[in-house]
């Protein structure tokens, strides 16, 4: 009954929202998913077993919605990349010459040799700006394994992509990040 669902909403909506905000990194998407979760709860109320915990039930609905969201996003990359994504693919191709060798600029910085790089606030800032430059869907691909907490084959199954499709996407995103860090990280 909507009555129960209403009281669940008062009790759990913020917690559900924080979870979906963390998983999607977008306030709007997170709000939409919370709304969909509660509407699904109204609709499927008779499937809810009285003995079960409402909170657990709501979280399981939300988690399905989150995975669905990821799958759609990843699918849109492989099926109909937007113009921004096409540019992006061309750009990563330009990192290599006709013989597929690196076209590195002469003064390339060897930032990987820096010690304690990950604790360096400047580096974190650079990393943040470079992430912001990635097309949204690609950002989602490379953060997905941490956000969904899956490794290797599992993340591919979860996202319904083949491993080779997945590592090619990660490959492109990483190349962009590398180039961006090369550019922004000055010693």
């Amino acid at each position, binding site marked *: 009954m909507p009555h129960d669902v209403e009281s669940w909403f008062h009790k759990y909506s913020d917690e559900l929202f924080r979870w979906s*905000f963390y998983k999607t990194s977008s306030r709007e998407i997170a*709000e939409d998913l919370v709304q969909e979760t509660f509407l699904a709860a109204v609709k499927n109320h008779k499937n809810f077993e009285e003995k079960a915990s409402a909170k657990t039930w709501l979280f399981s609905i939300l988690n399905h919605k989150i995975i669905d969201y990821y799958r759609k996003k990843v699918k849109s990359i492989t099926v109909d990349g937007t113009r921004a994504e096409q540019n992006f693919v061309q750009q990563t191709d330009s990192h290599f010459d006709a013989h597929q060798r690196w076209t590195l600029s002469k003064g390339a910085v060897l930032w990987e040799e820096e010690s304690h*790089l990950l604790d360096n606030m400047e580096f974190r800032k650079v990393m943040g700006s470079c992430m912001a430059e990635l097309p949204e869907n690609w950002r989602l691909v490379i953060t997905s394994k941490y956000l969904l907490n899956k490794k290797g084959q599992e993340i591919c199954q979860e996202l319904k992509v083949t491993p080779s499709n997945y590592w090619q996407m990660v490959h492109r995103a990483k*190349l962009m990040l590398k180039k961006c860090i090369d550019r922004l990280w000055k010693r």
Partner: protein
Amino acid sequence: MNIMFLSCKQVTELVEKKQLVGLSTIESMRFRLHVVMCAACKSYERQSLLIEQALKRMIQVSRSDKDAAQLHPDTKLKILEKIKTSK
């Protein structure tokens, strides 16, 4: 394309494959053969691993940033309205 020698582009792809599902014996042999001779790819592999760690760190920080996040009151009213009217 040479059977024994991989291009830099192929090697950078294998860097990701290696992290995700691991390489076959042949792939791993070709990979090492290339990296031994190519400083750019050698340094790229380390960069890729560092980016990976940095991403992980970023996600952890982003989670603690959202600890106190709440649904906007207007959004709450809107969703409640929808719950009431949908049956």
